[in-house]
């Protein structure tokens, strides 16, 4: 090393010394020349070595309810996916910011066999073995399965794809059932956050003991790489294991809400956002989603349940007037599409009394004008609508409609 360079490095150490910049206490030099270290399983309970630098374990958990769900089918599952190609999955990574430098070191996948959930965890214990690690997990993560995850569609699946690409390999998890989206719908308005741990506590009623917070996971792993102490990783592995178990519990609970919403309401467990649930169910069962091959019975049930939910929401109160108006608008539109004009009219009438949303008045006026020919009453409604609460577009529509109704009335009087 040249003197000049040495001096510069010394300088560098002084400048950086004590600065925060990504330093870890007790960091030691990596093993050099040993190739991918840790040929043995690192002494973690249940793990066995697969290859140098990669180990795994398999755990079986009884899962009768899940088996039942998969036998009967669920509105949550797209057609074509059943027990043989359904996978729960979750990854642990060396960082959360993504990008080429964030590595996957723990990959978990679970599937149903008989009435048991078979849960596999694959652990990378040295970066140099990443290629072998990916080789092994490629088999365990078939590209055409349906992957149930929590935020796995946007983050984990992408990370995995990146790792494969870095090793010049295309491996893409194509189909996803990311429970984050339905969970947000059902619980966002009721919970301070929609993190998995929050859902566990408040909805799934699972209490974890001594759980390692997610943000500590990368540091634990780095420390493990330096010190090779399996005790450091044990909490990470346990955390990851429970995350996957929670996925199956969450799937069951969301399924329960969507397949028996009224029962859930009656029991009061789990609580959920009734309006959002109904809206989701309506969308899922809307006519354009029906195809001949699909289970028509299930869709019809879904729609019936959604309508019941909305009716409950409208009749039993408990919803604020904004929610109420939204529910009435959605349900009314649904009924109009089905030609159930009297039902829609009754619905709008009761809603107009409970909420002063001018959109309800407009909808009711439309039915009165076009279906009942009650032009006078329609005009009355339009004129009394609270235009202060209108958007600009709606105000224009009110004016336009009012003018037309007046012309109609005048013509009728001639």
């Amino acid at each position, binding site marked *: 090393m040249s003197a000049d360079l040495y001096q510069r490095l010394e300088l560098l150490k002084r400048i950086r010394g004590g600065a925060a910049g*990504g*330093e870890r206490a007790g960091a030691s030099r990596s*093993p050099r020349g040993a190739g991918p270290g840790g040929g043995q399983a690192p002494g973690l309970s249940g793990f066995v070595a697969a290859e140098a630098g990669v180990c795994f374990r398999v755990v079986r958990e009884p899962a009768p309810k899940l088996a039942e769900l998969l036998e009967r089918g669920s509105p949550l599952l797209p057609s074509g996916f059943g027990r043989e190609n359904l996978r729960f999955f979750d990854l642990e990574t060396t960082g959360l910011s993504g990008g080429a430098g964030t590595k996957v070191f723990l990959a978990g996948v679970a599937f149903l066999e008989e009435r048991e959930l078979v849960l596999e965890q694959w652990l990378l214990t040295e970066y140099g073995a990443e290629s072998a690690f990916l080789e092994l997990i490629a088999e365990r993560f078939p590209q055409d399965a349906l992957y149930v995850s929590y935020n796995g569609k946007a983050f984990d699946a992408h990370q995995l794809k990146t790792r494969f690409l870095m090793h010049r390999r295309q491996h893409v998890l194509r189909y996803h059932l990311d429970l984050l989206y339905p969970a947000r719908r059902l619980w966002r308005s009721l919970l301070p956050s929609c993190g998995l741990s929050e859902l566990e506590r408040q909805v799934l009623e699972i209490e974890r003991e001594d759980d390692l917070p997610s943000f500590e996971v990368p540091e634990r792993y780095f420390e493990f790489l330096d010190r090779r102490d399996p005790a450091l990783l044990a909490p990470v592995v346990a955390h990851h294991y429970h995350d996957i178990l929670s996925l199956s519990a969450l799937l069951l609970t969301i399924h329960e809400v969507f397949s028996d919403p009224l029962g859930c309401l009656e029991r009061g467990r789990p609580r959920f956002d009734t309006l959002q649930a109904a809206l989701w169910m309506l969308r899922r069962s809307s006519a354009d989603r029906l195809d001949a091959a699909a289970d028509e019975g299930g869709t019809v049930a879904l729609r019936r349940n959604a309508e019941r939910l909305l009716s409950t929401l409208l009749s039993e109160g408990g919803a604020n007037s904004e929610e109420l108006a939204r529910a009435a608008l959605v349900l009314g539109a649904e009924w109009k599409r089905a030609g159930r004009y009297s039902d829609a009219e009754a619905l709008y009438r009761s809603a107009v009394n409970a909420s002063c949303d001018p959109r309800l008045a407009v909808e009711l006026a439309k039915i009165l004008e076009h279906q009942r020919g009650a032009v006078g009453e329609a005009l009355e409604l339009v004129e009394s609508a609270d235009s202060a609460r209108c958007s600009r577009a709606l105000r224009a529509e009110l004016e336009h409609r009012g003018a037309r109704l007046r012309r109609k009335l005048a013509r009728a009087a001639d």
Partner: protein
Amino acid sequence: MSVIERVLTELRNDPVFTGNVTRWEEIPAREGRYADLPADLHPKLRGALVSAGVEQLYSHQAESYRAVRSGRDVVVVTPTASGKTLSYNLPVLQELLSAPEARALYLFPTKALSQDQQAALNLSVESGELGIKVATYDGDTPDSVRAAARDTGRIIISNPDMLHAGILPNHPKWIKFLGNLAFVVIDEIHTYRGVFGSHMTNVVRRLRRVAQFYGADPTFICCSATIGNPRELAERIVERPVELIDNNGAPAGAKQLILYNPPFVDRVQGIRRGVVQEARSLALRFLKAGVKTIVFARSRLRTELIADYIRKSLANVYTDDGRIRVEAYRGGYLPSERRAIEAGLRDGTVQGVVSTNALELGIDIGGLDAAVMAGFPGSISSSWQQAGRAGRTQNLSVAVMVASSAPLDQYMVKHPEYFLGRPPEQGFVDPDNLHILMSHLRCAAFELPMQPEEQFAPQSEIYLQHLEEQGTVRFSGGAYHWSDRSYPAEGVSLRSATSDNVVIVDTTNGEHSVIGETDRPSAKEVLFDNAIYLHRGEQYVVTQLDLENRKCVVERTEVNYYTEALVKRDIKVLHEDESFDAGGARLVLGDILVRTQVAKFKKIRFQSHENVGYGEVAVPEEEMHTRALAIVFERGSRAGDALQELDPAMRVPAVVRIGALAKNVAPVFLLCESSDLRAAERLRDPHFGRPCLYIYDGYPGGIGLAEAFGYKLDTILQAALSLVRSCDCGEGCPSCVGPRDPQEEVDGNPKEAVIAFLSGWLGAAATAAAEQALQ
């Protein structure tokens, strides 16, 4: 006689005007040199060119085409209006047409300016209906179109910041693009100098490394404005031999360059008429005669003021075509506003524009006939760029530089031979600057594991080992792997300025519309509560500056004054790391806090520019924590004694000038830009209790310039002494210790004082060495 000839004749016959002209230079017209369209040109491309009216190339375009086609990296030196874009578009489009998978990356230095869109426009013109998809990918690109841009864009237009923090760290998303990357175009390469350029070299290293991983080795096409060492700079940035193409074949009309010194208002006190008024009246003369004019102002405030004055003076003036439209143009306008102004200039609906240096670079605004510089733009090369904004290929054009009373401006107008004769500035970079290299080494290790034998930079494995000791990389399986949870590019900014902006919201009559934005430090200086903010001819009063939420609320108003902040800068020593005697002075290396505080503002009346009041400002200080070298002149040291020996009245001027001189000399030794370094002098420094000169890094956290300055102090001072001795000027000039400043009220000759001071400081031996160097 053309309009412009008529106005120039009028000016020549106006004794009041010519009385203030210190130089009237005629730059003769230049014949164009042409070449046929290349024989091997793809028929589609040929067709597109011919239908766009291009039947021949300028010689430099043909040269560039040949060199790039044969696989050589090039740098094309292109003055304004020389058909620059075609010199890279042509070879790129040719390849993209014949190799259906090939891709190209165009890099422009600005983050938000319109050049990128401009480039896209030129491309679409030059490529016609070639069906080659061009996509812009920068911070403003909506998420919804990013994936499509990556996957289908054959030409991606971006900037170094995006490449550094967005593209490279996520390269697996870019496989298709990077794996087929055939060209990298680096436009305006002369802007990558000093620290910015040192970052750029490392970004190019990273780009090449990732491209190589995917099997690509792109050719580099660089474009540069006229600088002293274009090839050397390009070779430092690309780190390969680069062919220089500087035979500009574009024709140019004759140009008249006028250096103008405003007349005295008060000869005794040496007060001249203000640059704002003078620039306005000149611009008015041109505009009223129907000459399309651009005025360059040195600040955003001046831009608005001059534009406003011109508009008011033109309110009742009509030409054959109706009203004369004049627009202001500067950073801080919304992109849509800028686009509209640029388009107006091109199609002729806007006849005049007043701009900051934002329009100095390559945005196409069509041909203008007159350029008025309201003040010396700060560097010779900037002056030529701005002057070049006037002038079309055929016609006569004029550029006028109106001097302000600042010493530098006065020097330029009084020494036209200096202004005209000085070679353009050189650009230096130091990519192996320890701080910069370490930052990018971290990024590179994040992007791909790094093998020990890989030559990212000279001896980079030593640095990798250091990172390994820190625990941010880990050696495994024969390579260093990134082993940290962070995203290193996030913490590395290629520029000194902070990127967080304050948006300006107009709430007049309960509206809520964003009218512009500005960076945080300047927000404190122009958008404090009760400030008058000028925007496109409207006055607004600031009702609330909310720095936390990066928002400034303004309302329309009408007052007869504008506001100017009084800025105070002070230095606090935070920590002394090291103190040593070297070169006859005590040197202290350490951390300092540079605080910039706006505590007051002045209200200045429009037109008369008199001060009509003050106001208080309550904004938090802008702080920069950086590294500094303090040169302490202690008694008993050679430097301290040399200072004592000076006439007491000359001590401050001498120390100030050592700072200026050091900034002139140091870039050669530190491979930086003069502006990367800062200097501040204290005759009675509160921390050291002695006269002292601070040299510090203009970058938060410092990047090692102050340290390097300390290690090379002897060499720098010797070079400084020989420079100032050999300089032909009498009492100092911009090349040595800086021009004389009348405000200083110094009787003696400051240049002599500096020579005496430095000679005493360096001692007999060193002085002899400096003498030696001279011979």
